[in-house]
């Protein structure tokens, strides 16, 4: 590969102790842009997203297969390597220290107590490698404050940051956030922090300690709202789908039951464009809508006119007609629409990549789109321990005998049941929705293949891991 194609983080190595979304999505971003990301995983404290498994598996399936099937794990962890290693055992600790010595970034989202308990503090790690960039991202950061150590998930952070209070209808109780947006925002901020710390290291030669507060990561995205709160402005509270100072904006009914179209008119030129749409000619001469201020004041009446127009159309037709005129609009997509969206497909937001358990796997693309050094996504999220031997040998420098011994005594874990291959049922028909380079359709009923395989390993398998005792209370999501 010549210099022009080399990804920006090539040659860098990252160790991840990640759980849930924040640290894992951060490290996925680093992996997509060329870093070698080694996810260090304990069989006793697996990533919470390994625990969720997949709906098509029987609930009593062997844990060692279950943990490779989580769908959100595919979202957070493509292009990484998995090292199964118990770092609280002496041999595991020794292997970890060898890795840290040759690593550029150590990233985790663990509770402060867990970091101390496992001997992963910055002081511990810096003693091994002074050039290391170390980051943890507890819910409220590591600095001394009254909420330090509080236990939260992303939704709790959404509430604390003020975000949840902004979701709802003006005439009703607030609805709050049902998606864990703060986790993802924290992952983005952490990506930014690490890349900038690497830039700093280029100048100084020294590593550093980064501390990210997930609470503040959400808060930092709400600057305008917090400023408005100080000025007593109009941007507070639940506004439904409206934005202060703007009308029309909303989600409007269409011809079909529970199908909707979103429309935003963001400025005067766009308003004039809306007035030119066939069937909406009555808007332009209407004195209730003459100025931007008039439209805000008469937003309900304006919504009625637009809803009357959208209600006779499909969501696709309405959005296409509005966009053709230059008005911001989109069908309110469901997930089928998302998968079949030509724009997302053209921009490679869904891809098929190899996976040791599934053969091939459907993974997401990358929202950070670079024209000349685009994201490299050649591997699915790893099966648990699939790279253990490679990493312990090639990176940590252990010889084969040492690796064998570590695997034999449970200090390290390599890929379980390497000969068992599973097939996600949807991979056989999703090609009709997403035109990718799919494997050739099999003539055999995929369900039959799956259950044959399940029978095979069920015969010999034992459930060694305790799914419920996974110790998740020690980690920040």
């Amino acid at each position, binding site marked *: 590969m010549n*210099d022009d194609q*080399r990804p920006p983080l090539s040659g860098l190595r990252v160790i991840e102790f990640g759980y849930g979304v924040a640290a894992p999505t951060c490290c996925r*971003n680093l992996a997509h842009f060329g870093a070698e990301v080694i996810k260090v995983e304990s069989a006793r404290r697996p990533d919470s997203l390994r625990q969720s498994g997949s*709906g098509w598996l029987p609930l009593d399936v062997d844990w060692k297969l279950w943990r490779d099937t989580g769908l*959100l794990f595919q979202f957070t962890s493509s292009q990484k390597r998995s090292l199964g290693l118990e770092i609280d055992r002496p041999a595991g600790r020794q292997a970890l220290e060898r890795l840290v010595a040759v690593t550029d970034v150590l990233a985790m989202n663990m509770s402060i107590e867990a970091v101390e308990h496992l001997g992963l503090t910055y002081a511990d790690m810096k003693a091994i490698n002074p050039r290391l960039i170390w980051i943890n991202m507890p819910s*409220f950061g590591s*600095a001394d*404050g009254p909420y330090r150590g509080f*236990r939260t*998930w992303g939704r*709790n952070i*959404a*509430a604390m940051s003020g975000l949840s*209070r902004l979701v709802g209808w003006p005439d009703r*109780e607030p609805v*709050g*956030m049902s998606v864990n*947006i703060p986790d*993802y*925002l*924290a992952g*983005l901020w952490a990506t*930014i922090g690490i*890349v900038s710390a690497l830039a700093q290291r*280029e100048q100084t030669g020294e590593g*550093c300690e980064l501390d990210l507060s997930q609470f503040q990561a959400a*808060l930092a995205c709400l600057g305008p709202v*917090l*400023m*408005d709160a*100080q*000025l*007593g*402005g109009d941007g*507070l509270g639940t506004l439904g789908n409206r934005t202060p*100072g703007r009308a029309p904006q909303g*989600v409007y009914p269409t011809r079909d039951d529970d199908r909707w179209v*979103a429309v*935003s008119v963001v400025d005067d030129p766009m308003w004039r464009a809306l007035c030119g749409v066939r069937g909406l000619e009555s808007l332009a001469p209407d004195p209730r809508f003459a100025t*931007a201020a008039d439209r805000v004041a008469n937003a309900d009446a304006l919504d009625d006119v637009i809803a009357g127009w959208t209600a006779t159309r499909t969501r696709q037709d309405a959005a296409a007609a509005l*966009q053709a005129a230059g008005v911001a609009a*989109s069908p309110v*997509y*469901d*997930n*089928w629409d998302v*998968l079949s*969206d*030509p*724009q*997302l497909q*053209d*921009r490679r937001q869904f891809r098929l990549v190899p996976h040791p358990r599934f053969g091939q796997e459907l993974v997401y693309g990358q929202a*950070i*789109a*670079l*024209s*000349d*050094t685009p994201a490299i996504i050649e591997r699915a999220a790893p099966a648990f321990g699939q790279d253990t031997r490679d990493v312990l040998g090639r990176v940590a420098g252990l010889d084969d005998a040492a690796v064998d011994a570590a695997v034999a005594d449970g200090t390290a874990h390599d890929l379980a049941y390497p000969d068992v291959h599973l097939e996600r049922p949807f991979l056989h028909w999703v090609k009709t929705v997403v035109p990718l380079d799919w494997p050739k359709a099999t003539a055999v009923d995929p369900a039959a293949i799956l259950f044959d395989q399940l029978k095979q390993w069920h015969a010999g398998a034992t459930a060694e891991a305790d799914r419920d005792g996974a110790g998740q*209370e020690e980690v920040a999501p």
Partner: protein
Amino acid sequence: MTFAPYRGLRVVDLSDDLLAMAGSVLSGFGAEVILVEPPGGGPAREVAPMADRPDGGTGGAGGEAEDGLGGDLGDGPGDGPGGGMVSAHFLSTAAGKRSVTAAVDRPEGAALVRGLIERSDVLLCSADDDSLDRCGLGLAELMAANPRLIVASLTPFGRTGPLSRWRGSDLVAWAASGALTPIGDPDRRPLAPGGSMAAAAGSLNVVAGTLLAVAARAITGRGQVVDVSLQEAVLGITGESGPTFTLEDLTGVGARRVGRRRGAASGMFPTTDGWVELLPFMPGQWDALAEWIKDDLGIEEATTDVFRGSVGVRVPYADLLDGWVEQLTSRYAKQDFLLEAQRRSIPCGAVNEPVDLLDDPQLAAVDAWSEADVPGVGPLKWPRLPLRFDHQVLGTGPVPAVGEANDEVWGDVVGVDVDERRRLAAAGCI
């Protein structure tokens, strides 16, 4: 040592309201971010939410500020929301930027901006190619003139692909990501999250992409285009409602709008002065909540084995359990409930009103705010960056007055002498 790894990185900011936050973040890492506004101040100073100016100033249309900010802080020319108002959006998203003025829609103004971009590292822009070409700021020409230039773009659907010309907004991005469908009340239409989270996620993707492009440039010697799509940015922050789940779960559960109750004993519950968000997701966390229900309400049944285990176990009893939880939360103020829940190791958050955060004890203790006395507005605070580097907090500076950096940038950086600057100002180009 001060953490400012991008000191010396010059960024020209032609962003719209959706991308405005990106330049402010870059300034927090040391970059010199130059906001280009029309003479008299740009539309960025009129972006809602707007608030009354505390000093009652009416502002004036055009002209440089006399007192540094004067009438031009929140009141540009034109027919916007009008005099006496100030944009909370601008006060937050322009923090830390410099300001220059140039009439980009006139050839001499566009030439100035081209000269600045030729001497810069990054161009933040939101306009589509047609609009840029009309101003003589076509990206291909700019990158040919300055091969090291990084173009950092945020557009509704991205700069490539069949829908690249589609217009957008925060709401439209939520709609096009699929994530809007499951948010809201079951008996009403889908509901967008407030707070412009599409814009925030898009802007953070642009910042990350810019810093990665700077790293790539150190290898290749060349700039490139960072082409972030708002649609994809929302897709990227809503993984757990993402499309692969629909592929697996043919019943469509999870794509339903469920209001403020999310599962059993989870979601938003009322207190005496607002709401709390509870999520006792792990088995032990439910056990702790059940114990609390027993302690406070005397309901012994809460701790029975019937309800113990994973979340799914409790879903059939959601109405019963939610009733108990609501009795419990209704006895407390939200902050008191938060503290007691945390004492009992139950994941919980107080549903803060934005004004609550201004006095939040955690934020005060960890020095989470940048503060300044903004002329004509008074003392204001805004969030610092959420990262500490070697225990050092990072923040952004206050907002610039219109054109405060004109002499320095057009003179020292672009090389326009003082007579020529006077002529351009008289001609309304600066």
